[in-house]
């Protein structure tokens, strides 16, 4: 096969996002290494009964992806494998260290199950699950259809009953973990997230009260490998379910738990209400909720379930759940916020609709999390690329999301990854080695890790990774980094011009971030036709973080009356750290100016968005009037 895209991409995670990414990359001709830490591919979707919006069984979609992946010679798949380290090796190359744990069952396994029967190590993990053995199989649907040995439960080679039981001699308890290093051109992180731990919501008694389960556990009720072999009966009594309550926002939108809405749980509950009513005639379902959040076309589904199955909707979250051992019933107490009356209901099953917790990803290679603890890129401009160029996030590691969104996010990551593999080097900063002291500040401050010290200690921008933000230039204490087209010379020319011109007119240097502030300025000059902007000398920079404090000093000590920096809001900065670095630099300068008895108000950092031309105008006017009050710069 002709390789259209060079290189080899590591996809971490074999759930629906990782499989989608691996399959699409392979179709585009890229080499792919797919690693999954569990023994099976398919992730959480593979453990569902059906998944919306089309209510497909998990094999639909997953099976196509897995079969395609298996057909590509340039895809390697490693199960029971984790990434334990990522290091930048050279321009565009990361070295990853993989730890492959032993499966202890070989490919010759026919999944006959004799080993599982023979295995003496047994454990029950929750009240509604079947007991599991140390050696066990793939369940209803998973790939590969091969057994594996759960190291944590296995009694080891002294026992070896499974080895003796296997007619194919496929069990090998001597297999050991292996560590390997691998060079890759890109990494797509699709490791997903864990669901929020329901036992942390003390008032709902999960793990303590029989009959309180999670939505994910309810999924298994409908599967052949579920607690009652696919029958929706109460796991304790074996009786068909009669009254089932769903509690929405279980541990979500709550400052003590997850502060955010995971977005998918309402639709999941509606789906499960439908499961129940389809398979049980007399079942009653209640939904305790704050708001039913079914955006877009899911509203239609909500209406369908509401009208078709008539579940009871109670607007309010239960304050307590009580369990009566004599009847096995659960009493749920809740104030209905619409009628303002207390409602009590008796149920044989209470289902907690839990959201997604932030991913537990190892902190390798300095990838930063967003405010919610997820690995989002810059939304919307670079939604999947993390601030370590060459590493993308796909699926729910980015933010809570369902299968549909995970696939979309994986496709976005693939698109960005392929662009990166083919992209031409951008213009990147030049280093004046005569001046550089190899202090390493640029290396530390580069938001992309694109500034790397070479073997001689001099930093160099990786042409593949550098995005030309100029933050290195802004922070360099020796002014030895220059982005083409920017740099100290321009500032000096402006200062010289003002000095030569002389006179008492106010002179203000205005640095404009090229992303938002500059377009805003452009609209402004069209609107104002120069009125009110007299004395302003604008200068565009790729990011406000590219402004070196020495430039601001140069202007001030050269006699300009004020220097204004217009950048993005810190949370909107296209280069993440630009605005905050500029703020720190200006704060330091202001402290020095104060000591110098020079008014710190002569420098100002303002934040504008792209359509904020009016705000920019106001800020400029305010700045000018405050400078007028201060009078001319004493250095003039």
């Amino acid at each position, binding site marked *: 096969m002709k390789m259209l895209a060079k290189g080899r991409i590591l996809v971490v995670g074999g759930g629906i996002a990782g499989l989608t990414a691996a399959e699409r990359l392979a179709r585009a001709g890229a080499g792919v290494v797919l690693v999954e830490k569990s023994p099976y591919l398919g992730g959480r979707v593979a453990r569902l009964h059906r998944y919306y919006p089309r209510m497909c069984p998990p094999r639909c979609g997953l099976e196509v992806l897995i079969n395609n992946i298996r057909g590509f010679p340039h895809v390697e798949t490693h199960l029971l494998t984790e990434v334990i380290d990522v290091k930048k090796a050279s321009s565009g190359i990361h070295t990853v260290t993989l730890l492959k744990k032993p499966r202890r069952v070989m490919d010759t396994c026919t999944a006959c199950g004799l080993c599982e029967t023979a295995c003496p190590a047994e454990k029950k993990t929750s009240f509604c699950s079947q007991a599991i053995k140390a050696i066990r199989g793939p369940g209803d649907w998973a790939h590969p259809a091969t057994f594996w040995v759960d190291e944590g439960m296995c009694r080891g080679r002294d026992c070896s009953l499974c080895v003796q039981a296997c007619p194919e001699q496929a069990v090998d308890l001597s297999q050991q973990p292996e560590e390997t290093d691998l060079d890759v051109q890109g990494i797509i992180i699709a490791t997903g997230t864990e669901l929020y731990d329901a036992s942390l919501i003390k008032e709902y008694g999960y793990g303590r009260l029989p009959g309180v389960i999670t939505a994910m556990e309810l999924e298994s009720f409908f599967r052949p490998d579920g607690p009652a072999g696919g029958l929706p009966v109460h796991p304790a009594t074996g009786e068909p379910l009669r009254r089932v309550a769903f509690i929405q926002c279980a541990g979500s939108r709550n400052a003590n738990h997850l502060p955010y809405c995971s977005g998918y749980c309402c639709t999941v509950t509606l789906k499960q209400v439908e499961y129940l009513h389809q398979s049980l005639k007399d079942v009653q379902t209640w939904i305790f909720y704050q708001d039913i959040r079914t955006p877009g076309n899911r509203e239609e589904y909500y209406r369908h379930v509401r009208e078709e199955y008539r579940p009871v909707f109670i607007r309010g979250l239960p304050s307590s759940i009580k369990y009566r051992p004599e009847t096995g019933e659960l009493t749920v107490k809740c104030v209905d916020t619409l009628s303002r009356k207390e409602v009590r209901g008796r149920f044989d099953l209470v289902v907690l609709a839990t959201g997604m917790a932030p991913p537990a990803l190892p902190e390798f290679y300095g990838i930063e999390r967003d405010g919610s603890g997820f690995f989002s890129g810059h939304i919307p401009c670079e939604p999947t690329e993390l601030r370590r160029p060459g590493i993308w996030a796909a699926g729910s590691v980015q933010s809570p999301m369902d299968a549909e969104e995970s696939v979309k996010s994986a496709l976005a990551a693939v698109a960005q990854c392929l662009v990166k593999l083919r992209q031409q080097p951008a213009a990147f900063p030049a280093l004046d*080695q*005569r*001046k550089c*002291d190899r202090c390493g500040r640029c290396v530390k401050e580069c938001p992309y890790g694109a500034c790397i010290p070479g073997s001689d200690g001099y930093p160099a921008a990786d042409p593949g990774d550098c995005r030309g933000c100029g933050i290195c230039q802004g922070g360099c204490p020796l002014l030895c980094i220059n982005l083409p087209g920017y740099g100290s010379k321009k500032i000096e020319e402006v200062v010289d011009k003002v000095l030569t011109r002389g006179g008492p007119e106010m002179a203000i240097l205005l640095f404009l971030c090229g992303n938002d502030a500059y377009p805003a300025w452009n609209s402004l000059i069209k609107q104002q036709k120069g009125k009110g902007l007299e004395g302003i000398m604008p200068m565009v920079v790729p990011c406000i973080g590219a402004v070196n404090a020495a430039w601001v000093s140069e202007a001030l000590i050269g006699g300009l009356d004020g220097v204004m920096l217009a950048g993005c809001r810190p949370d909107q900065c296209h280069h993440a750290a630009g605005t905050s670095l500029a703020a720190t630099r200006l704060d330091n300068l202001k402290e020095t100016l104060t000591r110098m008895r020079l008014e710190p108000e002569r420098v100002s950092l303002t934040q504008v968005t792209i359509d904020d031309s009016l705000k920019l105008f106001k800020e400029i006017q305010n700045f000018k009037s405050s400078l007028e009050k201060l009078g001319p710069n004493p250095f003039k």
Partner: protein
Amino acid sequence: MGKLIPVYPQDVEDVFMETDLLIIGAGNAGCYAAIEAKRQNPDLKVTLMEKAHIDRSGCLAGGMDAINTYIKKGETAESLTRWSRDQAGGLLREDLYLTMAEELNKAIEDWEEWGLPIKKDENGEYIARGRWDIAILGSEMKVILAEKVREYGCEILNRVVATNFLMDGDRVAGAMGFHLREGKFYIIKARATIVATGGAGGLYKPYTNDGNDCHHQIWYCPFNVGTGYAMGIRAGAEMTTFEMRWCAVRTKDFNGPIDTISVGYNAAMINARGEKILAERYAHLGGDKAPRFIRANAPMEEWLAGRGPCYVDTTHMTPEQIKDLKTDYLNERPTFVLFLAARNQDISKEPIEIYGSDPYIVGGHTASGYWIDVKRATTVPGLFACGDVAGGTPNKFVGGCAAEGVLAARGAVEYLQNSGAGQNSLNKDQVNQEKIRVFRPFERQLNVGDGISPWEMEERLQRLMDEYAGGVHQFYRMNRERLEYALKNIAMLKDQAKYLVAKDWHELMKCNEVIDMLDVAEVLVHHLLYREETRWPGWQNRVDFPERNDEKFNCFVNSRRDPQTGRVEMFTRPYEKIVS
């Protein structure tokens, strides 16, 4: 990065390097030598060994406000030489001075081209500040020079403290030293070596040294302690004219320069009675144009005569002149402006007090240093010298040191071409002995944990030299008996150097600096003893021989310490007059 802790010499890692030309000291002269060597032959490997950092090392760390030797229109190399001879009491190496003078202007013009701002008038001519001086804005001049050295592709070893030359028989074949940050011992083999470590400050107790935080309140760069002299003395190099010490009139307490004021702004020195000292008391010696050693000594003579304190009179200066004057200081010794503010002193109303400095050995101002030939070769084969460390050329100052760097590089490059000096195998014994010598303060710290701190020994030496070898507290006066006392005590200090202790690598540097200072002080006292006359009253004032004795001493007093016996041999070399 934390402090590096003491280790035994055998545990210190050796770093072996080879180079074509090794330059020890990356100050002004060293940098010019490096650039010139590369200009002569870009293929040469040129390595600079610097105990500080090239950007801010040496005398120009804080900057400079003027170039004091620039040959302006109407002047010549000969006229400059004549002037310098007068200033130096008739004794200088005219061959050296003339060759240096030929290079002066080019060196300065290069500096300007590289970015050093030199003040100019409306016709584009340099603004004169006296007969030979031009005004510059030199606060960043050393940084500019360092950038150029890097541009020429020289190898720079910052924070490597040179301790001794590497010898190949009688020939210098590089140098050894230790790296302050890496904690390693460097052995650098070189086909030719230039020493440019500067002069020696801190041999004498400064009068400002009276407690906290003032120890280094001296005029000369206190980090130049004479290591280059000491290395040469230990290698048996011939030294000249150490007795011609540089004791200058400086601003009182601050120890800042005053030529800035007196030459630049025509401010006369006055005594407590308001009399213009030079015009009224030294008219017979040229008044304001009297030789430097007379001018340098004049305020101190006024003190002795009961007419102190003395001042430079700034009270006539206009506000613009005062601002210019302060700008000059900001470019050289910025804290003088702070000093005036901290005294709440308005110099348009109150003159600036002056006093004598502690004595320095500095070949850029007087003639002390290595005895060299016109190629700047020392008496030890393979070793060249330039800048403050090179002798025979008084009044070369910043420009002259730069020019001499150029000449030393040419000499060294020529030596490399002609001698074809190859790299012989390394003498391991020499390296091991040197490591034992250099790291002895660590061994004592590790084995005994107690001893003499380098600061204690430095202060003992400084007081000894001050009291017995003509320091500022003695108004620079000395006699045979006091000098002999000094020698006897220096010998004791040298013997006790084995008790020095160092708790980290910085202190180790300080210990080795003190050991270097002892070697320089010993040779200096021998020189002061030998010249039994008083030729330069402010600088070398023998109370027992108060007159000038041209019959016997119109010659250079030279010395050589025998590397085997350690005995200092004194002898003379004739003065040769070239310029009429």
